[in-house]
């Protein structure tokens, strides 16, 4: 169990929430990103995630450091799953603890935005009639971010 890791098995989010809890924490936010069945009217059968694992874990840890420096008193844990994921499976979990709740929300949302910018992980959507590597979510003008 590392605080910043790429995993290949099902994610148990509570493990990461426990990892950030401390007596001085009044608030914990736990975000889980799930495989969604429908995206803009297209039905996803399943997803396949691939990562450049050592760099991805390094970048997840970097995001943790960015947060702990920017928001005093926070502690962060992040895991992302790779391989084949079915509908409703957890792809990513972000746990943030903080003395105060506002920070816990802000820092958690910051983490998911940064993951989508700098962490080398790629998602392939598999539909009934095809498949496609998804990328460049930030630049697609019509791009709908999960």
């Amino acid at each position, binding site marked *: 169990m590392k605080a910043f890791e790429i995993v290949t098995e099902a994610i148990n989010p509570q493990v990461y929430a426990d990892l950030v809890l401390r007596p001085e924490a009044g608030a914990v936010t736990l975000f889980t990103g799930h495989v969604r069945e429908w995206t803009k009217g297209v039905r996803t059968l399943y997803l396949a*995630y*691939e990562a450049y694992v050592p760099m991805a874990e390094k970048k997840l840890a970097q995001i943790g450091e960015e947060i702990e420096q920017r928001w005093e008193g926070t502690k962060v844990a992040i895991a992302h799953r790779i391989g084949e994921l079915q509908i409703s499976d957890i792809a990513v979990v972000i746990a943030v603890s903080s003395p105060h709740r506002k920070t816990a929300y802000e820092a958690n949302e910051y983490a998911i935005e940064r993951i*989508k910018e700098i*962490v080398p*992980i*790629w*998602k392939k959507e598999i539909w009934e009639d095809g498949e496609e590597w998804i990328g*460049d*979510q930030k*630049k697609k003008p019509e791009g709908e971010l999960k």
Partner: protein
Amino acid sequence: MISLHYFAGLKEQTGVSEEKVDLAGRTVDELWQWAMDKYPDFQTGAARVAVNEEYALPTDVLEAGDVVAFIPPVSGG
């Protein structure tokens, strides 16, 4: 020698996930020229380059033993 890694859509274009090449002393920009010559589907700007697991600048010079990765636009989360 340096090792090159390809991921996601780029890996499907190259057909390999990894290869060893003799590009020590070249810049990241020159690596791009080399890659576009070898793989016609490659396009500048279609990926970032990481050297030893950190994003690199076009002017960075590759050294023997470097681990280089082409990072197409990421889509985690």
